[in-house]
């Protein structure tokens, strides 16, 4: 099981703040996970169309080739705007 979190404008676009996902076979990286989420269609296509979306694995920033595995906490969000 994967814990997925969505923040800020992405959360509003998806209408979802979090979900638990049974990790489908063949999905080993952030980029593959993005493609899987985009395949849901509708507002989820943002995972394919938005170049600026960021990801974190277990609360550390992660690139597209970062590995994901069962038990991980994976977050997606727009570029940060604090300070």
């Amino acid at each position, binding site marked *: 099981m994967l814990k997925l*979190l969505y*923040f*800020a*404008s992405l959360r509003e676009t998806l209408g979802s703040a979090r979900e638990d996902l049974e990790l489908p076979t063949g999905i080993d990286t952030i980029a593959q996970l993005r493609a899987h989420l985009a395949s849901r269609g509708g507002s989820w296509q943002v995972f394919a169309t938005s170049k*600026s979306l960021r990801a*974190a694995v277990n*609360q*550390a*920033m992660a690139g597209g080739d970062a590995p994901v595995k069962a038990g991980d906490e994976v*977050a997606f*969000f*727009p*570029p*940060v*705007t*604090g*300070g």
Partner: protein
Amino acid sequence: MNEVSVQEADFDVGAETVALSAGDDGAGAVATFVGLVRGEGIRAMSLEHYPGMTEKALAEIVEQARQRWQLRRVRIIHRVGRLLPGDRIVFVGVSSSHRHDAFAACEFIMDYLKTRAPFWKKEETDAGARWVDARESDDTAAARWEGAD
């Protein structure tokens, strides 16, 4: 005291500044930065963050600053929730033996915070609410520290 706080409550700039050198006669310099909510046509600003990751990201930024400069005390306070124009958003304070380290580390911490700590701002205006876009100038400001000291 924790070096890093993420909180809804306001903070006391005077008390936080004093605490950076209280009882430490090796401190020769204290540099602080306070970020505020600009008016500019907005009625309010809401700050959201990623609890857990935010604290880790800020602690990591402090650690990087400590590796670059000789620092004594570091303090970061970042507010979340709904804020009004003029409200304080963020406090960064650094003490060191000499001013250069305190000035540089304070600016470094702010530059990295703006591009690496998971906070997001949403503005309320007369025309409705809108998420604030990330600025390229913030990335440029953070990037100038790469390879510098």
